[in-house]
């Protein structure tokens, strides 16, 4: 969309050209005003410099037309900046429905990453080019921030909740990612690399050593049985708790009449604070699993619940993990 400019980092995601255009627009407006005011000041300085020691200036107290002009014109420009920025941001905060979901977990001072098929990485993230990727971010201790300059994206990683971010890599290559939020002693070493691969390479890489890892869906299924979730969440809907079949990605009606989208954040909250949102027609009888599940186990359970869809989740590569939300 735009040639590489000096002082702009390389562009490797769908957001990079948008953010860079925004940057260019703001620089142009800023340079215009800076130059205009600097030139005016220097000109006045030279033109009206004091010639005689006891001279005074011409008393001018103001001009309502000028005041109006320099309130209205900057307001219009500010509104333009706001609107353009809002468009880019709203796009960034609303992931498309069909994404490749990858779990990213930050802890002092490393990044743990889990691919959809369970393959784990430390401080490395592999993604296919051209695919919408959603990162589901969790922290095990303090607030971190996942920041990929080449993608122009970042999002805080906050303990006690999921944040999500998405992007579509547009160029194969290796790009640095940083921890953006100061998180203690080795904050500056909480760095890693995103490897953007062609889809076939990614699929091959993903299947390459998946044997060594536990499939998160299988692990979640095992946990679901161990924690006796299945005794209440009966799949045909006759239990004390709602059936979880097809719940992910859909809309859930709550007891107070409101509705909520069943995304990762909702499922996580239902595990850790089950009484926060009660499904219509059910009683608040579930116990909290706060402190009893690790972040990995929560991820596995969510992966399992996501798999309870009309179509099963295959355990490989690009094209997988459709959420069924249309």
């Amino acid at each position, binding site marked *: 969309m735009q040639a590489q400019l000096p002082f702009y980092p390389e562009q490797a995601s769908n957001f990079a050209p948008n953010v860079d255009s925004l940057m260019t627009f703001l620089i142009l407006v800023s340079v215009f005003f800076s130059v205009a005011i600097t030139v005016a000041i220097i000109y006045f300085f030279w033109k009206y410099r004091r010639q005689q020691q006891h001279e005074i*200036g011409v008393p001018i107290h103001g001009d309502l037309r000028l005041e109006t002009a320099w309130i209205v014109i900057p307001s219009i420009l500010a509104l333009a900046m706001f609107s353009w920025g809002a468009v880019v941001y709203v796009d960034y*905060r609303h992931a498309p429905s069909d994404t490749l979901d990858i779990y990213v977990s930050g802890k002092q001072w490393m990044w743990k990453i889990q691919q959809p098929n369970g393959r784990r990485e430390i401080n490395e993230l592999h993604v296919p080019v051209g695919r919408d990727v959603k990162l589901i971010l969790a922290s095990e201790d303090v607030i971190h*921030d996942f920041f990929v300059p080449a993608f122009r994206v970042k999002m805080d990683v906050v303990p006690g909740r999921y944040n999500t971010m998405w992007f579509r890599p547009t160029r194969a290559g290796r790009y640095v990612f940083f921890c953006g939020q100061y998180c203690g002693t080795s904050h500056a070493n909480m760095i890693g690399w995103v490897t953007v691969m062609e889809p076939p390479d990614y699929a091959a890489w993903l299947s390459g050593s998946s044997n060594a890892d536990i499939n998160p869906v299988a692990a979640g299924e095992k946990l679901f049985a161990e924690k006796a979730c299945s005794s209440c969440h009966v799949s045909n809907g006759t239990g004390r708790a709602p059936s979880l079949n097809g719940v992910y990605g859909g809309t859930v009606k709550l007891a107070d009449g409101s509705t909520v989208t069943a995304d990762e954040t909702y499922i996580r909250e239902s595990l850790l604070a089950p009484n926060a949102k009660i499904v219509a027609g059910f009683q608040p009888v579930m116990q909290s699993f706060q402190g009893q599940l690790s972040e990995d186990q929560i991820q596995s359970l969510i992966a399992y619940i996501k798999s309870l869809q009309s179509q099963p989740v295959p355990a490989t590569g690009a094209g997988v993990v459709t959420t069924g939300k249309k």
Partner: protein
Amino acid sequence: MQPPDQKLPETHYLNATYGIRSWLLTTDHKRIALLYLASVTFFFFVGGIFATLIRIHLLTPEGYLVTPETYNKLFTMHGVAMIFFFLIPSIPAVLGNFLIPLMIGAKDVAFPKLNLLSWYLYITGGCFALYAFSTGGLDTGWTFYTPLSSVYSNSAVAPAIIGIFINGFSSILTGMNFVVTIHTMRAPGMTWFRLPLFVWAQYATSIIFILGTPVIAITLLLAALERVLHLGFFNPALGGDPILFQHLFWFYSHPAVYIMILPAMGVVSEIIPTFARKPIFGYAFIAGSSIAIAVIGFVVWAHHMFLTGESTYSALAFSLLSYLVAIPSAIKVFNWTSTLYKGSISFDTPMLYAFGFIGLFLVGGLTGLFLACLGLDIHIHDTYFVVAHFHYIMVGGAVMGYVGGLHFWWPKITGKLYPEFLARAAAIILFIGFNLTFFPQFVLGYLGMPRRYHNYPPEFQVLNVMSTAGASILALGYLLPMIYLTWAMRYGKVAGPNPWPATGLEWKTASPPPTENFDVTPQVDWEPYDYKNRPDLGLVPPALAPAHGDD
């Protein structure tokens, strides 16, 4: 410019009484201002040493000087010392204390004993901070984000928080004192719209002091309680919400930026009409914009949190409000520039600082628009772009205003003139050094260098070295005024009551002023910054005024 043989008054506030007790137990607002001057200068020095070490450390990608732990403590303590113990009290407590009663024709502030108590609270808070710095240091960042500060940090968080908590009461008392003083103690004829714009700016600042400071005090106290007693306010493991801390913290700490910049804008609004020798352009707009900034400034805090996962609607609202607060700042810049039109402009040192202020504030303010822009903030949030931006506002803006103000009123405070050539040179050195230090950081930020990194990828080295080189010039720019202003106190030429001359009431009394400020309560019957109808200033109206006067 002034008649050559000026004499110091025989008795003035500096020599009215002698001895250490006469200073430590003084209730004279001018002496309290000097107590503050000495103590904020000390903290500026402390914070400056930390800054020097930071810049030396960042000369090489792997970090040149200290361990990661120490580096984290350096930038944290730099921020705490500079923000809470230098920038926030600097202009209000030093120049505000000294000038507000003089400018409105009063003998003192409304509550002189509370004024002294403010200084003791500041000193007590400062001692706690120094205790924290010297016993384990502080490594949370000046922002104290939870749960890092309340659970995970192994440094002296609690003493530092107690210090900031105590210091907060100093701000609150100063704010109350100024508001009551400005409301009740104006001299006959000193109407609200005859007030100097510096007083308007101090009034707006005082409102923020009173309304904002209690929030930061209680917020930090909650973090300390969570840390010491394990009460779950912000720690999710105890059922708390870490983001709640950020809301409360920025509810004060964003307006705090206006605490720093508004008084500096007030200083500039005094300097420019004086050295252009004409009324300020759009007095009511400049005064009103100070109040607008103080009010709107309270509803923009969550623009620090666009990427915490806050709702999209909240982000949109706070972005729009942040653009709104930019308009009053723009109004001020346009009015200052227009004041120069058809002026009689001189290049005296305070004027150079005023122009330095406009230039740096312009960059700082405009880059604020970048950060308020939601789409752009995704990339530049928490990078060196932010570091550069707020240093342009807080150091470029606030400190230029403070140092410029010290030069402008030094003849009033001390009765002496500083060496003009040296002072002009220092102003230029400061301006150049500042830009060399901080402009490269905008580029670093857009290239993706995160803030608070003790090491960095090697491709960022060139810009970091430039920044450090600039910082050494900047340091010279700060040291020079410290030296020659101190020197001038004793050896400077006698200034006389009104060396510039300026139009404010403070220039109608002796330099240094007597303890009671004015021998008789002054009667104000002139408009602010009016040179035309002030024969007492000894200047002549422009000979060609009718020819190109157009008002």
